[in-house]
């Protein structure tokens, strides 16, 4: 079952529409195992698609890693000296790479509580999905419908 029990509906998206978008995103590269939408404040995966199936413990771990990763990023950015102004970007990302593959976590600076989580076999695959994932993030906020940057 893909949906968690009584999950909150993500902003700007009907549940089935978001699941469809996540499935479309995941299907773009064959080695993407999981695409998930996560509330970082509650560390809760609200929607996800995966193949093969994924255990709840793994989803919990992914959302915890994403929350910790973005907290680490924010703390590090705040410690940057003036000569290194934080990069202005349409999406912040964190990559975790180990022998299990690549976890790519993305969030918009305008809605930092929402994140997309992708679990891929290679960093190349994850980065190939990145533009479309950012476009999906923006669509969820109702900002920039349409395809992402090339």
């Amino acid at each position: 079952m893909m949906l968690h029990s009584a999950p909150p509906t993500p902003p700007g998206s009907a549940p089935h529409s978001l699941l469809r978008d996540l499935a479309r995103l995941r299907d773009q590269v064959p080695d993407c195992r999981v695409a998930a939408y996560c509330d970082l404040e509650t560390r809760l995966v609200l929607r996800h698609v995966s193949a093969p199936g994924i255990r709840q413990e793994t989803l919990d771990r992914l959302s915890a890693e994403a929350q910790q990763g973005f907290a680490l990023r924010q703390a590090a950015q705040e410690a940057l000296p003036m000569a290194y102004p934080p990069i202005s970007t349409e999406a912040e990302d964190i990559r975790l790479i180990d022998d299990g593959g690549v976890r790519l976590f993305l969030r918009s600076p305008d809605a930092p509580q929402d994140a997309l989580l992708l679990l891929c076999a290679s960093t190349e695959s994850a980065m190939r999905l990145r533009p479309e994932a950012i476009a999906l993030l923006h669509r969820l906020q109702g900002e920039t419908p349409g395809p992402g940057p090339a």
Partner: protein
Amino acid sequence: MTTHPARHLPDMAQDSPLLRRLRALAAPPSRQHPALPERILHHIDTTILPRALILAVEGAPLARFDITQRALLRMEGPDGALESHEFNSAREAAPRFAETLLRLSAHVPDHARITLTAEARPLRSATTQCSAALLQEALAGLAAASPEEALTKACASALARGRLEGETGHITCDGPRPELYPVAEVALSRLWQEQQHRAPQAQPLPAGKPLLRLTQLSAASSLAVVSQRGNHVALLLPPEAAELLARHWQRGTA
């Protein structure tokens, strides 16, 4: 006379170490395609006029390389084109080219018949050209990388380095940009705190498995944190060095 030396040795010498060595030298390599990247690099390094180099396996075209003036302009691999103008620099593009070459090599079956055919083609402009030397460097980096090697290479190009002793929480920093030490210290302190108060579900990995966390902080700096057995190393890297570390790390841990 250019015939095979082993064929002219007397039968009585067939088992001698010298003969075995000669046979090994004369025999074709047991796997042909580890040499495939080198063969393609040789074409790149010797081609002046615009050419399309077609790689075919058992007669079926698998990839195409656009070459001119001893540089690779563009490569079209089996899983989609890699346009050179998508990249900001040749140094950024080379690892992608090298990775695709290695992937091609891995997918070619043992003893498959490989042909490389160069065809004349119109000159096309390109903003990025990968020289054979640059590709060779990227290939060597990818082929040799273990997690430790990847980390060692990245340390050499780091703007600042920080180390956290997992037992004591003690942090030390060094590197050419002292103004970035606080960034490494903040990142490592945070990891130390998390380590002390980690909830069971937040345990990122079984102890001992190396993990790389990577994120770009500013236009000129990315943060890479390598964790293993409760010890952590934080590196402030130029973004292109961080990308190289990501690729080497992935190959080293795969």
